[in-house]
């Protein structure tokens, strides 16, 4: 298992490097430079600006700048936010837990909906339940998160007044009351994101279960006299989950994209809304770092999927 883990980790490093090359190329190709603000500022004399450029190494060749940028990123020196006046890594670390909380809960919700519905639909293919589930899944992933978010606000906040539509990180309450308020304000973002993902996961689960349900070993399990529930849960589902893990991992970029939109709608103070704020404030160091963090998260979750894959499918050799 340890060698398998290390091998997966070693495979993740080239993809991170590739992503960093893509990011840096985009930044290097872009017009303008981080000191354009100073160029328009008459209080900064040209020779001071030139000295600053030299001290930051902006006149060096592009390869040197890439290596320096990369080593800074690896060492956690992510620069200084122009807008917030604090270090970028502190800023992101403040915001990251909220994003992970919202994304994680919504994934759990999505799987809690998709697994039972998908399995039940696949054990009765083309039944009324299957057709309704299939149509609803289509509706679900055709509804963009920004529209469902607005609909939820319209129905549950404006009309029914059940939930607050602005997410606050500073709730003036303690103990159970704090947890209750957190739950109340998190429920809409999590539901919006979770249901959107549940729609596509349901289709994955259904087709994966349909693929294994007719295999001989399932017939054997039935012939042994196992109960239908045990056959479905222990024999069918475990094998059907293997392709689902891969597909869920492939969805990760879309999940973080959806999280960005939901955070923006519900004003959740995560790294997604930090990215939008930074773009509106022209805060380049923050923008670059947040994009890089998103990439790292995607690679990290792909790594987790690989490990899960090895655990679910013993045929994958760990040696």
């Amino acid at each position, binding site marked *: 298992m340890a060698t398998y883990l290390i091998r997966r980790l070693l495979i993740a490093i080239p993809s991170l490097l590739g992503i960093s090359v893509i990011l840096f190329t985009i930044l290097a190709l*872009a*017009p303008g430079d981080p000191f354009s603000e100073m160029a328009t500022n008459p209080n900064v004399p040209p020779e001071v600006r030139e000295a600053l450029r030299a001290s930051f190494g902006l006149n060096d060749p592009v390869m040197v700048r890439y290596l320096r940028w990369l080593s800074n990123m690896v060492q956690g020196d992510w620069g200084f936010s122009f807008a917030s006046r604090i270090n970028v890594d502190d800023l992101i670390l403040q915001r990251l837990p909220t994003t992970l909380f919202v994304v994680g809960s919504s994934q759990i919700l999505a799987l809690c909906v998709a697994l039972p519905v998908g399995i039940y639909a696949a054990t009765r293919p083309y039944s009324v339940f299957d057709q309704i589930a299939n149509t609803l899944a289509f509706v679900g992933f*055709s509804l963009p998160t920004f529209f469902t978010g607005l609909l939820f606000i319209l129905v549950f906040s404006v009309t029914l007044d059940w939930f607050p539509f602005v997410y606050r990180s500073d709730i003036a309450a303690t103990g159970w009351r704090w947890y209750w308020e957190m739950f109340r304000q998190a429920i809409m973002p999590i539901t919006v994101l979770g249901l959107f993902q549940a729609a596509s996961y349901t289709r994955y689960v259904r087709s994966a279960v349909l693929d294994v349900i007719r295999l001989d070993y399932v017939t054997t399990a039935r012939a042994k006299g196992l109960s239908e529930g045990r056959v479905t849960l222990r024999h069918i589902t475990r094998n059907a989950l293997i392709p689902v893990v891969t597909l869920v991992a492939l969805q990760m*970029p879309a999940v973080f994209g959806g999280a960005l939109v939901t955070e923006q709608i519900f004003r959740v103070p995560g790294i997604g809304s930090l990215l*939008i704020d930074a773009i509106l404030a022209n805060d380049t160091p923050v923008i670059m770092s947040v994009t890089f963090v998103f990439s790292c998260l995607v690679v990290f979750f792909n790594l987790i999927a690989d490990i899960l894959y090895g655990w679910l499918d013993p045929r994958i050799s760990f040696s």
Partner: protein
Amino acid sequence: MAGSTLASPSADPAAGAAVSQVSVSPGRETWRRFRRHRLAMASTVVLGLLVLGVIVGPWLWPVAINEIDFSAQLQGPSWSHPLGTDDLGQDILARMMYGGRISLAVGLAAMVVATIVGVLIGALAGMSRKYADPILMWVTDLFLSLPQLPLLLLIIYLFREQLKAIFGVEGGVFVLIVIVIGGLRWMPVARLVRAQFLSLREKEFVEAARAQGATKMRQMFRHILPNALGPVIVASTIEVSSAIIAESTLSFLGLGFPPDIPTWGRLLFDAKDQLDTAPHWALFPGAAIFLTVLSINFIGDGLRDALDPRRVI
């Protein structure tokens, strides 16, 4: 078998010959199978009406999209404004028809970009027997693990001003959005095309073409590609809907098209702060996006059924 009693009419050789005489072209057969998918047929009608609406609509409803009327702010649907007005008294129906043209055009153009790039990369990887395949597939997997929305935002933030100078405000943003969305969405097509090429290139008809001296290009584009098109058509249909969602998302975040170009996502962005007083302002553009995306997805599903020869309908 000769002289024996036939068990059923369908086993009658004469009847079999009669059926095979009715020649059915592949296109007609696909259409017959597509029609069996009722939701896909209904979606074709809905999408057709939407497309017709945004193309013909502005002539039938000749109201300027930027006609400001402060006496008619945030009004609900009425005869003079069928879909109501926004906070400047501008007619939402006229704005939606104008914006719909752009949203649909972005979807189609980005699909074309994604399909061309995907087919080229997939075909190159699928035909190569040396190093090109693993390298191209590594790049494809790398692109698949890029977080697309943050990257889209980053690129648009960095390059918007430059392209505005070259293509003008509207054209610059259009070109940028199409290239970036298309350039970040070619991977599914490339994987499909590669998989098809890997199996098709070993088939006898390709070997026959090779034996007759067909060049590699001719084998690829004349013999293999036409046989690989079915899944590509399905994938690129779905690309249209994801490109429309991507563009609407950008505009919804306020970072896509500028405010004077009312794409559907931009209308939602403007409407979201008036949700309590003027819900119609957000509901109509949102419903338009939803209907378009849903019908394109259903059409893709219908095409998948119709173009898969193994599926019995």
